[in-house]
């Protein structure tokens, strides 16, 4: 498939910029790439300048425990297409799925790329790394995943974990996690790891991060989990196209019901949008309109969140941390605690009656006691005195 892409591009318009893509086409590609990830026009110009200087960054792409879904979705982008990315913007020096080489040749290519661009290349990791039993659950070229990762990461300029598996473990780390699958940031505690969780990660987030690194030589602003804020700064719920239905209280109650068909909010079907930080709601996958779970009528699964995906039951409604107002309003004359004057009157009469009764009763008791000691002021003292005499 890739060979088709490559051949069509190379034959028709000799893909690399240096080999004769006209400047206009090249600028278009870069502008598309920048626009797709929400970078500004000036950023696109910087990218162009960087690439024109021949500064195509070397990318080494490692695969561990995963399904290659992140690579697959990257292959399906078209603004810019992978061929343009590979030939004009980055230099992909090692990628087990895409490279032609195999066996010793492939390992030699990896070592050569590490040596040539030591300290500058972008290391992209796809997949979780097994750590149990010294990592023996996965070996490539006689090396365990942990060793391979540490070896390559040692000389990397920037490290990007693409997908939930590389970011925090993903599917392989789901309970009971027999292989001890871990995200790479836990294995590289002294390195800055850009995590791009998602199952798969949206390819544009990767492109945006990589191209910004190319253009400016620095990584985008990251949150405490290493996620670029431009893509993971808000929750799905905040930008959901079905949000109006949520606010109005229109919910799909079960799959296939009237509300579901009318495109109502999927919250009650277990949508994790309110808990999930991702950009899917505004950046659909691979230029296909509505190619993301909620767009297709399925509740958000929370694939980017370690505490949600493969952890919470899929159909269990999410917890809303910061609720916002519904579509209805509180009336100015809110029903407040109100006691009618009649009730107050009756209450007053009751209390008065009890007090009066108590008063009368106390008088009666006092009278009863008085005959025992008539004529003496301090009746109590006298009673005790009398009882003492008896």
């Amino acid at each position, binding site marked *: 498939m890739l060979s088709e892409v490559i051949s069509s591009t190379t034959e028709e318009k000799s893909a690399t910029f240096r080999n004769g893509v006209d400047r206009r086409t090249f600028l278009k590609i870069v502008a598309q790439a920048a626009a797709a990830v929400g970078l500004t026009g000036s950023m696109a110009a910087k990218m162009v300048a960087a690439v024109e200087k021949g500064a195509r960054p070397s990318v080494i792409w490692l695969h561990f425990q995963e399904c290659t879904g992140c690579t697959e979705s990257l292959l399906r982008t078209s603004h810019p297409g992978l061929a343009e990315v590979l030939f004009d913007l980055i230099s992909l020096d090692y990628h087990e799925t895409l490279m032609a080489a195999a066996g010793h040749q492939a390992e030699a290519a990896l070592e050569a790329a590490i040596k040539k661009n030591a300290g500058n290349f972008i290391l992209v990791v796809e997949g979780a790394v097994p750590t149990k039993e010294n990592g023996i659950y996965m070996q490539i070229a006689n090396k365990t995943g942990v060793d391979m990762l540490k070896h390559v990461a040692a000389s990397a300029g920037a490290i990007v974990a693409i997908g939930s598996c590389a970011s925090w473990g993903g599917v392989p780390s789901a309970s009971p996690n027999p292989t001890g699958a871990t995200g790479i940031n836990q294995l590289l505690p002294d390195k800055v790891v850009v995590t791009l969780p998602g199952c798969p990660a949206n390819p544009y987030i990767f492109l945006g991060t990589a191209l910004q690194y190319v253009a400016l030589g620095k990584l985008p602003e990251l949150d405490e989990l290493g996620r670029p804020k431009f893509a993971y700064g808000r929750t799905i719920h905040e930008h959901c196209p079905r949000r109006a239905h949520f606010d109005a209280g229109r919910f799909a109650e079960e799959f296939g019901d009237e509300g579901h068909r009318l495109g109502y909010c999927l919250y009650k079907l277990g949508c994790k949008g309110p808990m999930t930080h991702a950009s899917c709601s505004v950046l659909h996958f691979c230029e296909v309109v509505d190619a993301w779970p909620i767009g297709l009528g399925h509740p958000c699964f929370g694939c980017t969140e370690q505490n949600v995906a493969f952890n919470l039951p899929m159909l269990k409604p999410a917890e809303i941390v910061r*609720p*916002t107002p519904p579509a209805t309003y509180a009336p*100015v004359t809110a029903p407040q605690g109100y006691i009618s004057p009649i009730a107050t009157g009756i209450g007053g009469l009751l209390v008065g009656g009890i007090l009066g009764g108590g008063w009368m009763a106390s008088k009666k008791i006092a009278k009863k006691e008085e005959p025992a000691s008539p004529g003496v002021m*301090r009746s109590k*003292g006298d009673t005790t005195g009398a009882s003492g005499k008896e």
Partner: protein
Amino acid sequence: MDVNRREILKALMGGTVAAAVATTGMPVGTAAKPEKFEADPTALGLMYDATKCIGCRACMPACQNANGLTPDVGGSGGLYLQPDTLNAHTKNLIKLYVAEDGHERSFMKQQCMHCADPACVSGCPMEALHKEPNGVVGWTSHLCIGCRYCQVACPFNIPKFEWDKFNPKIVKCELCRHIVGTTESEPACTKVCPTHAVIYGKRGDLLAEAHRRIKAKPGFYFEDHVYGETEAGGTQCLVLSQVDYIHLGLPKLGNQSPAAQTRKVSDFVYRGFLTPVVVYGGIVAIVRNRWKEHLKHAEHGGGEDTHGEEKRA
């Protein structure tokens, strides 16, 4: 029993004396010079133009977040921020007024009005509620004794009490004074308002802007009047609306602040600390008298008793 009655009588006596002093003091107090109060034009406040409000309520979660309040989800089961009135979790609430015929509608932003001469501050015995130098009516946690006089005093029913807490606070808008001037330049609600229906500034500037709007559209706003210009001696939070302000939950108030009215009495009563001295002196005198009488009786009746007991022993 007799002893109990004595106790009750003692307490009653004290109360009557206090009440007597208070009532006799009051008419004299009203004769004292009424203090003329001018609202400070440089004091900080808000202006809420209900005709510009679209009811998006962006200000409500913004207020919650800025003040670290637990969201009041009402009966929504955790789905929505749904308070039906100001409460211990809500300092700012957008309400909707719909007339009975359904034609007249208006939003209303309910929050502390930041009175120029606040009744809550006047009522607070510990100065926990106080006027900041910039005019904001603030509340200080460590001075509050939880008497809730402020709740009774406020003509707008604004201060709320955390009934469900072990160490309750008084909750009311403090114009984000904990962040304005340090991390933020204005309160959270004005910052997020998309239509600038609520704006932040000095009272004088806000009032000028309100009059500019009224002048630009004569007859558009209700009675061409800014609510808060004169009400209760002037408030720093001003309201403009097309509908009668009374429908928005803003009561018709005189030009004098309730605080100024009560001050006439309280200033007299506490002048030179006279009343407390008279009242407590009176109580002490009565109790002393009663105690002396009691001792006298004890010498007669009680003496015999002890005598009798000794005999028995």
